[in-house]
């Protein structure tokens, strides 16, 4: 979608800036021809996608898009981030405005069948609860007869209703239009708990006056698998998006990170690592890339653990534990199929 610059005045007279566009059926060819990836992000979720003071983007979703760009172009900067509102995100993907939607979107059956494909789960989330430490609550079921603050028009309302009703517990819900009001109500003592996706609760807790007085319960009452979205009917692109994530997970499992990838590439003897880094076999061809595609990802962006700790983990103010997002070898759910 590289547009030939047309004078603004011409544009005002509704003469469209014509340009060579992307044939919808082959995203990868289009991306390569254009010279950069266009990635739809949320534009303002702590740890997932947010710009810094200089307008440079950071976050787990952002790093995923950078990894994709690194695999294709060997340059993690060849990606444009377009913030998408939750209302417009699916249409933006369908209309070809973005190549991939990495906008902490929950993978659900209806979305999968109606609008798009979800190649891979990049983050396992669930609906959690923020409560005051002084309540001494450690499990959600102890919130019987509690008042819960929620944001309007989200699935959290339904999830909460389902969960409490099936367990015969009573509760009261107070809903608000946006997260500021919801958090404000929780802080002022209007509610005993504030519930939303766990990954957001860590950021919300930091906004309170005394973050150390609040605790996020370990338990999650719903499944919120965050997955990047791609258009239906482009299997090659779908494979590439999925394997970008798998390469990051496999690299972490093999102990290859951004810090040691260059060294390991020189001296590794493990055939697994050799295949991963493109020293053995021709595995990039199938994806329409060069054979060092996974090396490029790890070299420029890092493995999944690198991305996680840089954006969400202990090194950040969010301090989100790996939990379900730990490798399968450490009791988590992140599992990459073998590269062979």
């Amino acid at each position, binding site marked *: *979608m590289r*547009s030939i*610059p*047309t*004078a*603004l*005045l011409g*544009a*005002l007279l*509704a003469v*469209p*800036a*014509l*340009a*060579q*566009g*992307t*044939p*919808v059926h082959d995203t990868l060819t289009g991306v390569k021809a254009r010279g950069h990836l*266009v990635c*739809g992000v949320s*534009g*303002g*979720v*702590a*740890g997932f996608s*947010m*710009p*810094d*003071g*200089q*307008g*440079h*983007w950071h976050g787990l979703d952002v790093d995923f898009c950078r990894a994709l760009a690194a695999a294709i172009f060997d340059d993690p900067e060849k990606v*444009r*981030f*377009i*913030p*998408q*509102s939750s*209302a*417009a995100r699916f*249409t*933006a993907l*369908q*209309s*070809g*405005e973005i190549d991939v939607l990495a906008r902490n979107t929950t993978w659900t059956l209806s979305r999968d069948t109606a609008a798009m494909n979800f190649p891979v789960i990049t983050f396992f989330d669930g609906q959690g609860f923020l409560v005051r430490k002084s309540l001494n609550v450690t499990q959600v079921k102890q919130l019987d007869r509690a008042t819960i603050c929620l944001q309007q028009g989200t699935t959290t309302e339904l999830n909460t209703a389902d969960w409490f009703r099936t367990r015969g517990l009573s509760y009261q819900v107070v809903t608000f239009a946006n997260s*500021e009001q919801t958090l404000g109500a929780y802080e002022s003592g209007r509610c005993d708990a504030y519930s939303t996706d766990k990954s957001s609760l*860590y*950021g919300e807790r*930091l*906004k*309170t*006056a*005394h973050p150390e007085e609040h605790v996020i319960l370990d338990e999650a009452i719903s499944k919120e698998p965050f997955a990047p979205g791609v258009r239906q009917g482009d299997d090659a692109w779908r494979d590439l998006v999925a394997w970008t994530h798998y390469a990051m997970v496999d690299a972490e499992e093999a102990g290859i990170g951004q810090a040691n990838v260059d060294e390991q590439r020189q001296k590794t003897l493990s055939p697994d690592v050799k295949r991963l880094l493109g020293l053995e076999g021709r595995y990039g061809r199938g994806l329409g890339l060069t054979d060092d595609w996974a090396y490029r990802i790890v070299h420029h962006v890092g493995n999944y653990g690198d991305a996680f700790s840089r954006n969400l983990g202990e090194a*950040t*103010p*969010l301090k989100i534990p790996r939990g379900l997002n730990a490798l399968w070898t450490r009791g988590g759910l992140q599992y990459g199929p073998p590269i062979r």
Partner: protein
Amino acid sequence: MSVVRETLLPPAPPPRRTGGALGWLRQNLFSGPGNTLTTLAILAALALLLPPVVRFLVTDAVWSGASGEACRPEVAGRPVGACWAFIGAKINYLVYGSYPAAERWRPNLFFALVAASAAWMLWLDAPRRGLGALFVFLAGPVLSYGLLSGSSVLGLVPVATSLWGGMLVTLVVSLVGIVAALPLGILLALGRRSDLPILRYACIGFIEFWRGVPLITVLFMANVMLPLFLPGDITVDRLVRPLVGIALFASAYMAEVVRGGLQAIPEGQGRAALALGLTRAQAMRLIVLPQALKVVVPGIVNTLIGLFKDTTLVSIVGIADFIRVLEAARADPRWSAPTIPATAYAFAALFYLAFCFSMARYAGFVERRLAAGERGRS
């Protein structure tokens, strides 16, 4: 019989003062019980509202800090108001969006260009205002577009519009709306009063269509639906699409404002001009239009202020305007403290207030000046 007074009357007390500060106060603020009560009520309200506002924005504000921690009361050791350190840390992003740091002189030059041409147009006695108008409405937009998006002719690195953001985008969107809406609106208003039926009905249709559709719908159509309708290999830049939408939308409103002015001018004016031997075009250009535009200065400025604030809607369709980047900047967990949302919104309010208030002041100035000319002539 006549009486002659032989002694002087005792001196009467002086009349109540009407001059000086005290006199002014008495006359304007405490002239009767109703006025006195109103004055006291307003003073009480100000006394109630102003101190907390000043305390939040100035006295308790935190002006510097490396992270949001500096804006927490425990760390600052005092009650904390606005966290201006946050705005300071994010200011580059708020002004330029993701515009490459090395190329920021280009938006800066654009801002300077805008300021200079605004001064040229606004300073009524400036030399060669006709040339200025030509620049603002024709050369300026083309030059600014070349400057900001870059072109090989000028030897500038191309900067995709998806990297533009913040105040830059808000200013670009508003200026395009303003610069396009005035001439287009005047043409539409004239077309709507034309004697040629096809032209008239086309203009009526255009105006009623754009006035009848909410701006948000126009933006959604432009940014989300349009790419679905266009053939796959044709794309229009995603910033240009809402720009065109906003320009057309604003020109429909402007047309109706100008039409109001045209209707306010007695028909005799145009007839007299024709009787003096002017052509219809001359009569319109020299007699009717100047008077009509003068009448509707408040309406025009009203529309422009409305337009300036309406541009925030582009944030809904994924354009990184000022409000959008402010929201995005707030997501940073390193800068999360209780007062940061309030600080961000206070900053936005001050930004919009500064622009809208200056527009309103300029309109007031123009009106007074035009009214003075009226008095001088009669």
